[in-house]
């Protein structure tokens, strides 16, 4: 009797797991479909009003439409729409893995000072004309931002490898970095000329309007490097969430995994910030939404974080164009406005523990 009961229960476990996997794949497909729709809408919207049919024609049969339409769709709107996708994906993925390796739900490029560092670096270029890396001065602002973000990420990383430094300490250090760089930024703003001040403020708000194809390619390339790095370590990264001892007992070199992850994360977080300014919310909330939808098995969590981040930023891009007709609001302002309500709904309707 018990043997039979066990056998039935066993089959049930296996079957239920397979069903769970199918559910998650459906979820991922849904996110992907929503992303396609959002990107299409994003490209259809803009100061110049083109009917959807014209936009679609320009997309698929670019030779058959007029020069003006083609340039608007291909050279202006498409880089912006795709930049929303790559930047959202990068920040969300960076946040997801920071949360994973630091075992902290508050970790993200924004909350641990990486974005603030980048903001300070950018302001340094905009206000004081200081190039941290005095080559290619025309790219001074993004390069400054990138280098400062890297410095912050490496600081967080090396602090985390010091003996006696706990996960809580890391978060404290990160928050201290946020305050430090923000204070330094305020100081620069205080000293800045009116013109430079406007540029800094615009930059710190985050905006996709300066997106170009090369920037899209660079951010996409970073993603193409980062995703396989994480994918190959999917089981190990998931195991890290069972605790350091547990992960080590599975034969994982925890220190090394953390270092590799943090280096990849700093690249993922710094590059987008250096191109589009501070877009804070995606890196924190994207992974949380992904986690609520598919759990923390990285085989699902990884693509879900990527998709949630891109979708969040893409929808935000759409909203930023529609909120005030004729104006494109800085996306950094809108992200939280779009993300927070959605996030709240998920938290309050999700009866399972989210973290």
């Amino acid at each position, binding site marked *: 009797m018990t043997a039979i009961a*066990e056998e039935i229960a*066993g089959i049930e476990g*296996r079957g239920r797991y397979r069903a769970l996997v199918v559910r998650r794949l459906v979820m991922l497909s849904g996110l992907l479909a929503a992303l396609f729709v959002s990107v299409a809408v994003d490209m259809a919207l803009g100061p110049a009003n083109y009917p959807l049919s014209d936009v679609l024609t320009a997309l698929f049969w670019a030779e058959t439409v007029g020069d003006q339409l083609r340039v608007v769709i291909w050279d202006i709107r498409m880089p912006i729409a795709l930049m929303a996708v790559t930047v959202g994906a990068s920040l969300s993925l960076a946040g997801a893995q920071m949360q994973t390796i630091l075992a902290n739900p508050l970790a993200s490029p924004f909350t641990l000072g990486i974005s603030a560092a980048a903001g300070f670096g950018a302001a340094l270029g905009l206000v004081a004309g200081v190039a941290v890396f005095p080559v290619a001065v025309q790219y001074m602002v993004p390069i400054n931002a990138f280098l400062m973000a890297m410095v912050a990420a490496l600081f967080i990383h090396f602090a985390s490898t010091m003996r006696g430094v706990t996960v809580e300490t890391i978060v404290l250090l990160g928050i201290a970095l946020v305050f430090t760089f923000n204070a330094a930024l305020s100081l620069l703003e205080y000293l800045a000329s009116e013109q430079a001040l406007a540029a800094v403020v615009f930059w710190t708000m985050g905006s996709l309007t300066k997106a170009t194809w090369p920037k899209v390619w660079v951010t996409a390339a970073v993603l193409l490097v980062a995703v396989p790095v994480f994918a190959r370590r999917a089981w190990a990264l998931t195991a890290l969430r*069972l*605790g350091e001892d547990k992960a080590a*007992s599975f*034969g994982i070199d925890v220190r090394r995994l953390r270092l590799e992850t943090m280096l990849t994360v700093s690249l993922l977080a710094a590059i987008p910030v250096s191109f589009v300014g501070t877009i804070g919310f995606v890196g924190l909330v994207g992974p949380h939404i992904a986690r609520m939808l598919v759990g923390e098995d990285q085989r699902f969590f990884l693509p879900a974080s990527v998709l949630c981040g891109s979708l969040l930023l893409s929808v935000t891009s759409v909203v930023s164009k529609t909120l005030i007709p004729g104006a494109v609001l800085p996306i950094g302002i809108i992200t939280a406005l779009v993300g927070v309500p959605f996030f709240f709904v998920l938290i309050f309707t999700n009866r*399972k523990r989210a973290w």
Partner: protein
Amino acid sequence: MVSLALKDVGATYGRRVVLSDINTGVLKGGQLTAVIGPNAAGKSTVFKRIAGLAAGPGLVHLSDTAKGSEAICYMPQDTGANAVLTVYESVLLSAKQGSGWKVKDGELQEIDRVLAALKINELAFRGLGELSGGQRQLVSIAQALVRKPEVLLMDEPTSALDLFRQIEVLGFMKRLATQSGMAVLIALHDLNHALRYCEDTIVISDGSVVASGPTHAVVTADMLKSVYRVEARVEACSRGRPVIIVDDSIALG
């Protein structure tokens, strides 16, 4: 059958020496060996050292193993985790370390078997965060078992379990060790369990081995007095099994 021996093993955390000159005879596969001793004696540290998770001098000899260093699995004492994973996923994850994304049906069958053996298959799709302390401990045992170790180091695996589960788990582990030839070392605080389930016992106190050998020879009134500072008798119960009857603690001198 696999066997294990420690030779002049020590362990350090930073500059702090926690274990020194640990020598054991050959720890045989196919049976349970208890590792006992007071709090902070170094039981967990010995396990971590054997599993290669703590630094220190000395040699851990592993012989007749088919899996090399993969043969050893350490089940940590602390079982708390707040990952957003179901029990089933967390066990799968343990089995799949180091392999690809694809999950074969045989692997899932193995998980079902282990969960059934520990009688926790009704928990399979509960979240890890929603489990009771004892349930967590059972899941942790399942995670260790699916790795099919040849040497299993269980750090207080029954500390959060009710009486029924304690004897179920220890009885199951004993049968498993006998059948599979696995060497199972169990850190325990309940010495009656050691007497009942473990052939051999190693007593650690203050970072060194103070006694080791067949459990009956090691767990004695004298040892309880000197190592644990309790006044106790080891007597045969009405069915003839030795049991520990504790009378009093000994005041610090």
